[in-house]
């Protein structure tokens, strides 16, 4: 083990890593209503895996992620520096590894080929039209952990106001387990995730194998073995005296720890092995061939009419492919309306956003979810356009509604509806004095504000279903008919509220 004496190179590297981690967290914090959307999804835009897998699976180029070609170019020149310096999950793993310290298994578990198998699996599944990227991309895992686990936990601990996804539910627990498991793998080897599993690491490793600059064992060497001991990714083979540029995350440890100063960063090619075995490759292709159609089949089956997607969500199969399950939309949603799906959209739909109106409606004046979505799974709609993007339709359950069933002068649903889609009508059979709520499905867009405020205990007496949802990739949701049905004083004449005593 390297001694814990102060080492300038380590201080510099920690500083850079923590700065990028801090940037990641700050951008996460800025992902909210009221902050001009811009760079919040930066990390996903520089992720070449998003560009590759999402574009292939959706058969549509993810334009926002074209920036990631810069990272591809930089990696081709400088190697896999992203993993060693930039990746926020990598930094978090380093922190966890430091905490694990000596309790780690002495012989590191090294399965470098596995990460290529994960990459092959993702790409083949994408070719077969399903993206499993949300389950494997390190940046997604990091963002989702912040959105679904750490922010709610911090919210409860510090009593922050606002609507938080409810921690402790299945999907939150799932996200927490993934995160904790990745850190716990540090007991088996340092940077276990990065060297053995990470598909982004695999992609960058492939590029690094042909990168212009790389670390190499070049000078005089007394074969002391320090370099391979300090290497966190097992990139150095003592016996053969080689350094695998694909495995190297350029952490600088070997270069500065070598007593002979014989590790050099130079231009030029060195031979590296390709670690993906034939069996692993076959297993990856085989499982992709089985799982991708299964996952796709699940998305076509709409058993769950209460599965309501965010406003402007593209058609369901495309949505499932484009959605990274990063949780940015849910973090940004000011009302807590957007919540992670558990298994309502099949296992493959885990962590995709859904509108849970009972927890909060979709605010008329907010379009933040689509603005921050990195892949366009939720379209970037203007405010007015968003108010016409129909998510579903509200349905009154007359048996539970206290106006219909108990003649209560309630009408909170009508009160809160910002589109005037709920009419207050006298009982058609002349029972009682209270006006009854009735939904005009031509106007209702399924925002669910009514459901969120319904005073009936438990499930609301007015609920949004995905009935009539509008899911399109392009074009406007606004039509002349829709527009004419809306607007101040243009709708049908209103009944005199039952709060007035009318003299006949």
């Amino acid at each position, binding site marked *: 083990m390297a001694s814990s004496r102060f080492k300038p190179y380590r201080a510099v590297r920690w500083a850079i890593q923590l700065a990028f981690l801090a940037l990641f967290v700050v951008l996460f914090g800025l992902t909210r*209503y*009221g902050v001009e959307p811009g760079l919040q999804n930066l990390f996903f835009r520089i992720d070449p895996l998003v560009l590759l897998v999402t574009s292939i699976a959706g058969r549509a180029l993810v334009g926002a992620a074209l920036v990631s070609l810069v990272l591809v170019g930089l990696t081709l020149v400088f190697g896999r520096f992203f993993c060693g310096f930039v990746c926020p999950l990598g930094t978090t793993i380093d922190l966890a590894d430091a905490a694990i310290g000596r309790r780690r298994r002495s012989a590191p578990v090294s399965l470098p080929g596995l990460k290529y198998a994960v990459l092959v699996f993702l790409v083949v599944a994408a070719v077969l039209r399903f993206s499993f990227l949300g389950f494997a991309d390190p940046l997604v895992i990091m963002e989702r952990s912040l959105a679904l686990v750490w922010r709610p936990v911090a919210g409860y601990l510090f009593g922050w*106001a*606002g609507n938080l996804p409810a921690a402790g539910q299945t999907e939150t627990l799932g996200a927490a387990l993934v995160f904790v498991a990745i850190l716990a793998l540090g007991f088996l080897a340092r940077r276990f995730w990065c060297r053995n599993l990470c598909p982004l690491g695999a992609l960058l490793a492939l590029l690094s194998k042909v990168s212009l600059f790389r670390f190499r064992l070049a000078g005089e060497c007394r074969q002391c073995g320090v370099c391979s001991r300090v290497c966190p990714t097992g990139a150095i083979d003592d016996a053969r005296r080689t350094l695998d540029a694909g495995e190297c995350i350029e952490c600088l440890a070997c270069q500065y720890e070598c007593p002979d100063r014989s590790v050099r960063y130079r231009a030029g090619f060195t031979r590296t092995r390709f670690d993906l075995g034939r069996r692993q490759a076959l297993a990856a292709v085989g499982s992709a061939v089985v799982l991708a159609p299964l996952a796709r089949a699940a998305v076509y089956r709409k058993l769950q009419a209460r599965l309501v997607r965010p406003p402007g969500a593209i058609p369901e199969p495309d949505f499932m492919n484009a959605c990274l399950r990063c949780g940015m939309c849910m973090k940004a949603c*000011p*009302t807590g309306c957007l919540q992670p799906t558990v298994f309502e959209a099949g296992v493959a739909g885990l962590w995709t956003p859904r509108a849970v109106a009972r927890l*909060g409606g979709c*605010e*008329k*004046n*907010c379009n933040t979810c689509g603005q921050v979505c990195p892949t366009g799974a939720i379209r970037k709609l203007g405010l007015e356009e968003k108010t016409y993007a129909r998510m579903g339709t509200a349905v009154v359950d007359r048996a539970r509604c*206290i106006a219909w069933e108990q003649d*209560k*002068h*309630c*009408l*909170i649903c*009508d*009160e*809160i*509806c*910002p589109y*005037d889609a709920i009419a*207050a009508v006298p009982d058609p059979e002349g029972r009682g004095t209270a*006006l009854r709520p009735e939904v005009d499905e031509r106007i209702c867009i399924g925002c669910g*504000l009514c459901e969120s*405020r*319904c*005073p*009936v205990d438990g499930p609301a007496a007015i609920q949004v279903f995905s009935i009539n949802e509008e899911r399109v990739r392009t074009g406007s949701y606004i039509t002349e008919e829709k527009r004419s049905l*809306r*607007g*101040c*004083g243009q709708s049908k004449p*209103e009944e*005199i*509220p*039952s*709060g*007035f*005593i*009318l*003299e006949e």
Partner: protein
Amino acid sequence: MSDLSRRDFLKLGLTAAAAALVPKALMGQESEKVAGPAIGVARGDNAKLVKAALGEIGGMGAFVSAGDRVCIKPNISFAANVECGATTSAGVVKQTVEECLAAGAAKVIILDHTIADSTLCVEKSGIEEAIVDPKKVSLLTLTQERQFGEVSIPGGTELATVKVAKAVQGADKLISLPTAKSHSATGVSLGIKNLMGLVWDRGALHRKNLHRAIADLALVIKADLTLVDATRALTTGGPGGPGKTVQLNTVVAGTDVVATDSYAVGLTPWYDKAFTGRSVRYIVAAHELGLGEIDTAKMDVREVKV
């Protein structure tokens, strides 16, 4: 009556002079003295209405003393644009805050338990304009149950207890600042209805007899002053809009919340039909609980134009 400033004195003099020049018939029954509650009604320049209406009933100094902690409860319950008429106009809130500070209030807290998301309500209502002095004036959105404390309602007909904002319970004075608007369930939403924004579980009122439950609130949440913002009234489509709005350029001030509400009902037709306080169930219920005067004829209405 508080001290009159010179400007007020001159204004009063001018008004009196003008009144003397106008035939009596046009002035209504102003000269007849009525023993009932005083109602100050100001019409005209929206930027001056609060001071003018208050001037008719003694000025803010008659209600707020030096060193007071004052809670102001506007209605900013909906994330609707100001023109929609669903929220109290920020200008009226600002004038009220300024009057409170001028009267020597040590602290002014503007608060509401909004129906729509509080962040959006604050943004759309433009209410932050009313924070004229950040050291003394604060905005409090009531979003969590712990901000409310339970109080019992002796004599309540529908509610035995209700959870009321602690900030109000700890304040010296409460000023209710509703906007005049229609309401799909209660007909109109005015001063008494505005008190619903100070309780935690609004749904509980809807599950009871809504109108009597609202009146019950006025038994325990006593506004020292009610200022009805009728600069713009939403006469249909309330309480959240969209609906028809009319410019009334009026503010009604009074200490008797039943009287101010009852008077304000008559300011304009609602749902294209003329009503009085007697035709609004919750106002009638509050009157029957002995909370105030409902007949406008028995009120001492003092009108002023600015």
